[in-house]
């Protein structure tokens, strides 16, 4: 599932972009060391392949709904993790631009969620050890299932973290995580089944392709433990950072969720964390201190250090704000319309 710009805060978006750019740099460097030029067109064309394959719908077994593959795990097995990660990043970039799936700020998160977890975590740590040499179809199936499910679960959990760290939604952490992880369990199983099927198919038709792919990646059975540990440590820092933020904001997850659902006001959640810091920054940068739509109107959100509520003047501000926004919007549209007409005339004059 694609993360969307509208749910992100700049801080979260920027951190995931930073992680993603680092990962792209790392993958490119690694690939340059041990491949020939042949890989470049192969990766590009396989990117187009994943793009097309994602458009092939099939029925997800046991649910009746239809879905499509993500492709990260197939690529990791067939190309090795570095090339697979770069291909996934390109596919997501094309989708972000042409289908506007998520948007440009969220692209960093999406590459991280849908590329990094399957290629750099699930593939080397789960698929490789479980599948062995990959010749046994049953082992291959089990490995692909476990790895695809784990990769998607990590991605889904990551979406939950990104959404909640951004603080644009009111969803309680537990319920949201449960919902996302359950949905993605079914998707993960489907992905795993199709991945295993495609790998077995390719192995039976052109076994040498898999051997070549293994050669162009890092050598078999020698996944560097240090690198894996480094990645895991990085993830642990991110996860624990996120979790501790939740822990500090909401001392008891369940209590907090109940309070949220029942409308209790015991927790002053939105004043802390990234969202709170941003809002404070905005308050400081506001030129007219009384231009605080939410402060005057929203009781539950008023922080202890916030300005006192406005009375009559506040209502006036609010009306002026609404009228002004409407005018600005209309003027924008009028400008666009005028430009259109003027351009049309210019064309006819020529």
């Amino acid at each position, binding site marked *: *599932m694609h993360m*969307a*710009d*509208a*749910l992100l805060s*700049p801080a979260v*978006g920027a951190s995931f972009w930073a992680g993603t750019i680092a990962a792209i740099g790392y993958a*490119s460097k690694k690939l340059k060391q041990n491949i020939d030029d042949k890989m470049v*067109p192969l*990766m*590009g*064309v*396989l990117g*187009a*392949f994943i*793009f*097309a394959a994602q*458009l*092939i719908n*099939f*029925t997800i077994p046991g649910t009746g709904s239809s879905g499509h593959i993500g492709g990260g795990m*197939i690529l990791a097995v*067939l190309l090795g993790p570095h090339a697979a990660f770069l291909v996934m990043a390109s*596919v997501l970039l094309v989708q972000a631009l*042409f*289908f506007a*799936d998520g*948007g*440009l700020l969220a692209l960093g998160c999406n590459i991280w969620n849908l590329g990094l977890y399957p290629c750099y975590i699930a593939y080397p740590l789960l698929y490789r050890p479980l599948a062995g040499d990959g010749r046994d179809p049953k082992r291959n199936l089990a490995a692909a299932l476990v790895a695809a499910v784990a990769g998607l679960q990590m991605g889904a959990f990551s979406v939950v973290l990104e959404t909640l760290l951004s603080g*644009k*939604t009111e969803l309680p952490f537990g319920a949201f995580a449960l919902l996302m992880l359950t949905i993605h369990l079914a998707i993960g199983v*489907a992905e795993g*089944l199709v991945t295993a*099927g*495609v790998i077995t*198919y390719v192995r039976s038709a*052109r076994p040498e*392709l898999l051997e070549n792919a293994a050669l162009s990646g890092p050598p078999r059975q020698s996944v560097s433990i240090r690198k894996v540990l480094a990645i895991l440590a990085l993830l642990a820092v991110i996860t624990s950072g996120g979790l501790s933020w939740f822990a500090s904001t909401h001392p008891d997850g369940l209590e907090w969720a109940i309070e*949220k659902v029942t409308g209790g006001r015991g927790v002053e959640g939105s004043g802390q964390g990234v969202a709170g810091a*941003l*809002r404070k920054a905005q308050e400081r940068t506001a*030129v*007219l201190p009384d*231009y605080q739509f*939410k402060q005057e109107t929203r009781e*539950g*959100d008023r922080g202890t250090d916030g300005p006192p509520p406005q009375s009559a003047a506040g209502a006036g501000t609010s*009306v002026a*704000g609404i*009228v*002004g*926004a409407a*005018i*600005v919007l209309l003027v*924008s*549209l009028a*400008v*666009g319309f005028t*430009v259109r007409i003027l*351009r049309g005339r210019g064309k006819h004059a020529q």
Partner: protein
Amino acid sequence: MSFDQAFYTIGRLDLLSYQDTVVHRLDARVKVAATLLFVVMVVSYPKYEVLSLMPFFLFPVLMVSLGDLPVLFLVRKVLVVSPFAVCIGILNPLFDPGTVTVLGTTLSAGWISFLSILVKFALTISAALILIATTSFPGVCGALRRFGVPALFVSQLLFLYRYLFVLLEETLRIIRARELRSFGGRGREAKVAVRIIGSLFLRTVERAERIYRAMLSRGFAGDIPVLRRRGMEAADALFLTVAAVSFALFRFLPVGEWTGRFAQELFR
């Protein structure tokens, strides 16, 4: 999104990106930079902000009208894409305990934050579509390369784009064949999808091998050189400056508020 729709969208955006207008002629780098700045500015608003986002609509409106882009097509794209933000956002009114009074009506503060998500969604999504429709994919790739993205990554991006249309046409034929042979839910099982994807993969690899050989015989050495290099021109610098200054104005000054007060004074 159905396959035909996806295919049509990409083709249409690709065609649009080769128009010749003021916006299309701008350097790809300034357009990428301005779009990123725009998205960050829009997203940086706190969650209960709706009204002060309105001035930001000026940017997509101007880009669309100056760039001669079809309004309805883009609006439809924005409406259909990615229901995720909407699905998550619609839960805000349920979980938000606060209330808001707008022009005398009291409603859950969650409606305001939901509205804010919708507005941000419309702005950021249209910005991405407008970028590609005015810059072209190779243009964006060139900009990425000159921003310092690794050559290997950019080269295979260009390959991806070049062969996207070829592969999509091939897949279109395969999907059509499947539709013709399946009645009801038959033929849509994962088993069939596996064979389709598997054989598509093999064909793709064989195609890549042919492409590579053809390229080798034409002197390919691992990098795709960009033929049309141009420097920043005055117009590009002006565009970026105007965009940055006006985004900052919209973001940090209550433009809508002032307009509203001015209008109130005018009609008093």
